[in-house]
């Protein structure tokens, strides 16, 4: 029989700061984590508002030898990992460590380190480069630091699937447990806000235009949305088998009822993409649930002009017939696009929302896009939510959806 996979804790470093509590209280309050960038000069990219983790002091949370050689990505992710283990009350005994793994999703996690290393190599020469900084250029190193810091010997994996990678990581983690390859997994993602990352989105023309009339920068599903507001963070959900969680008396925040991924081969080179509902259908099929049993969709919508449209069309297609009772929300209206961190942040908000019987608001929504043929709450709503579909998608055509059930 297929083992049940439950979520027993969260580790959160978001644009609202360090910790699950501050994240959740700001999300419920409809706050915005976006502000002018302080850690580098972003004027060449139009000085966009972004979701920076301000005043980030990892040494207050983690004790880890060699912390000073880690780049920001690794520092963010190690901090979130420690918070996740603490929140779940995971007791990492010698035996438990061999059965606990980590899966990380990242969009451009090592880009800053790669490029600064490479530019140093090119401008100052081979002799100037540091062997201690080279590992930061390798994308699986942040997850490697998590395993070193916590002594996790189960496995470590790093996935890359654009802006859906945080959920792709949780899907991989769940399936590793189902296949008996681990009993518990820290699953989530990370990305740091750096000039190198910002330039990628700027050059690709994906960033939100500067607000001219005081309109908000990040307005998912709004008819006048102009693009993505970039953010950073790290987040983990702790996944375990139900048996292990129950045996140790852990608080269970939710259960993963199904997951699915899909790809639209026509999207990446803009060849008339279709609605990106493939992942949603796959997740429903995997869970054995009907569209009507989903109470709330936590959309991946981030204000992207074509991305939000594809997702809205996907929701319309998959939930055809049950749209009148479906509620949809876009958390990224508040946090910005936290890239790798977004997936587990959405899962965290979904689980806490089910526990408290609330749906967080979608902010900055002034006029819904005509394609959004479903209800979007713009203020905190009370609602009895038992099943949430959490979605993530990428302009390349990739998508992953997870279905989370209430405990």
């Amino acid at each position, binding site marked *: 029989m297929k083992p049940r996979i439950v979520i027993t804790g969260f580790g959160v470093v978001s644009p609202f700061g360090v910790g699950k509590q501050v994240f959740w209280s700001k999300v419920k309050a409809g706050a915005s984590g976006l502000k002018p960038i302080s850690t580098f000069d972003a004027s*060449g990219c139009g000085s966009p508002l972004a979701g920076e983790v301000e005043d980030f002091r990892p040494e207050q949370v983690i004790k880890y030898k060699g912390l000073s050689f880690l780049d920001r990505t690794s520092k963010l992710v190690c901090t979130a990992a420690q918070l996740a283990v603490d929140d779940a009350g995971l007791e990492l005994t010698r035996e438990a*460590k061999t059965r606990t*793994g980590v899966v990380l999703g990242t969009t*451009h996690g090592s*880009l800053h380190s*790669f*490029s600064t*290393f*490479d*530019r140093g*190599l*090119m401008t100052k*020469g*081979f*002799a100037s*480069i540091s*062997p201690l900084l*080279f*590992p930061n*250029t*390798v*994308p*699986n*190193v942040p*997850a*490697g*630091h998590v*395993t*070193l810091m*916590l002594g*996790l*010997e*189960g*496995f*470590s*994996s*790093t*996935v*890359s*699937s*654009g802006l859906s990678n945080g959920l792709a990581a949780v899907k*991989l983690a769940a*399936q*590793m447990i189902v*296949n008996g390859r681990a009993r518990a997994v820290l699953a989530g993602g990370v990305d740091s806000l750096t000039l*190198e990352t910002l*330039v*990628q989105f700027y*050059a*690709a023309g994906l960033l939100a235009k500067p607000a001219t009339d005081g309109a908000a920068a990040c307005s998912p599903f709004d008819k006048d949305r102009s693009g993505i507001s970039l953010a950073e963070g790290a987040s983990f959900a702790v996944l375990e088998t139900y048996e292990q969680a129950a045996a140790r008396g852990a608080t269970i925040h939710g259960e993963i009822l199904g997951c*699915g*991924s*899909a*790809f639209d*081969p026509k999207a990446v*080179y803009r060849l008339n993409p279709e609605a990106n509902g*493939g992942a949603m259908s*796959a997740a429903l099929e995997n869970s054995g649930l009907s569209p009507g049993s989903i109470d709330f969709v936590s959309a991946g919508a981030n204000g992207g002009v074509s991305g939000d449209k594809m997702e809205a069309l996907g929701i319309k297609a998959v939930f055809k017939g049950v749209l009148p009772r479906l509620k949809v929300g876009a958390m990224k209206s508040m946090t910005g696009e936290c890239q790798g961190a977004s997936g587990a942040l959405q899962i965290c908000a979904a689980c806490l929302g089910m526990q408290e019987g609330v749906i967080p608001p979608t902010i900055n929504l002034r006029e819904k896009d005509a394609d959004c043929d479903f209800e979007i709450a713009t203020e905190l709503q009370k609602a009895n939510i038992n099943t949430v579909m959490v979605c993530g998608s990428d302009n390349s*055509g*990739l998508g992953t959806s997870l279905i989370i059930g209430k405990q």
Partner: protein
Amino acid sequence: MSNRVVITGLGAVTPIGIGTDEFWQGMIAGKNGISEITAFDTSSYPHRRGGQIKNFDPAVFLEPEQIERIGRASQLAIVASKMAMGDAGITHLSNPRRVGVSLGTTYGEPGILEQEDDLWITGGPQSIGSCVALKNSSYLPAINVAVEFGVEGMVETLLNACAAGNCAIGYAFDQIKMGCLDVVIAGGAEGMSRVGLAGFNRLFAVAPEICQPFDKNRKGMMLSEGAGVLVMERLEHAVARRASIYAEVAGYGVSCDAYHITGPHPRGIGAIRAMESALAESKITLDQVDYINAHGTGTPANDKVESLAIKEVFKDRAQQIPVSSIKSMLGHSMGAASAIEAVASALVIKRGVIPPTINYQDPDPECDLDYVPNTSREQPVNTVISNALAFGGNCAVLALRKFDNRVN
């Protein structure tokens, strides 16, 4: 419900051969694929040789406009995938949602990132245009393969450094086993990278002339490039379309050293556990293992620890099992390496010849196994263990077996 998973198509683009036939011929002849790297200026690096694929002309396989919009790793990945799909006899996807892509890579498209850095150095960050920014993401090799074949199922990229290929194959294995997909184009791709060559040189991990795995005088690895792709298929699906089967993926084991970010655990605990898990899942007994395709990078630490781990797992039998490292010929293509080694392992099962470890001269007392020195060996092989032991302590091991409908 658990499905059996078989390999029905193979493709490889490597420094010793383009296409599986040329690759196979080179491998059993003990061909050396290492030469001076000319892909970029290496004059300031102490050691400048590696496994650059110098005779790869993408125009032979791809359209000019396609070549223009994708990086080298994507080119290698698409070409190896076309070979594998052609070999599997799949020309049309009747149910594209049941087909996936799972590829491993270390850096994705490092050549494009390095182009961006050149632009940045001369013209500042704002000089990076969309033409490069849309070519650089690490997931693009997998995406481009999926676009090539019209895949609509899961498309995933595993960034597990030098174990990425095996991890991607392992993920594909799990997806098919669980019944989520029928066919997965699985493997790995890596392009030559100046950052990689500089970094490994700075870690004193690159050999000066040749790659000599397990030899007493081994001096390090050789950075290389390439792609290896397997068409993995649900058994019933393969049987229904009367596909020819190379081998069965019988098991997969993963673990993590949690010891050091670049070096292996001195007692090989991760390698041991990953081999044991792969054996346990495959139900292959120690006595049944006919060949071990080693990670065998040629660094002093890896080869010693890997030999130790093999002895720990196989006990008295360790000395009797042929163990070889094809990295002696190909160098280490990082994210592609274990995928190319999986292609080699499937061919070994099909064709009954074990490739050699070349450049092997002086035995090392700490590496005292049968490394199939210098000359390939004709021998029936029913089961293979293929190791990948990576940066960050990532260990991933595959167990392959000759397909036999009566077993299991």
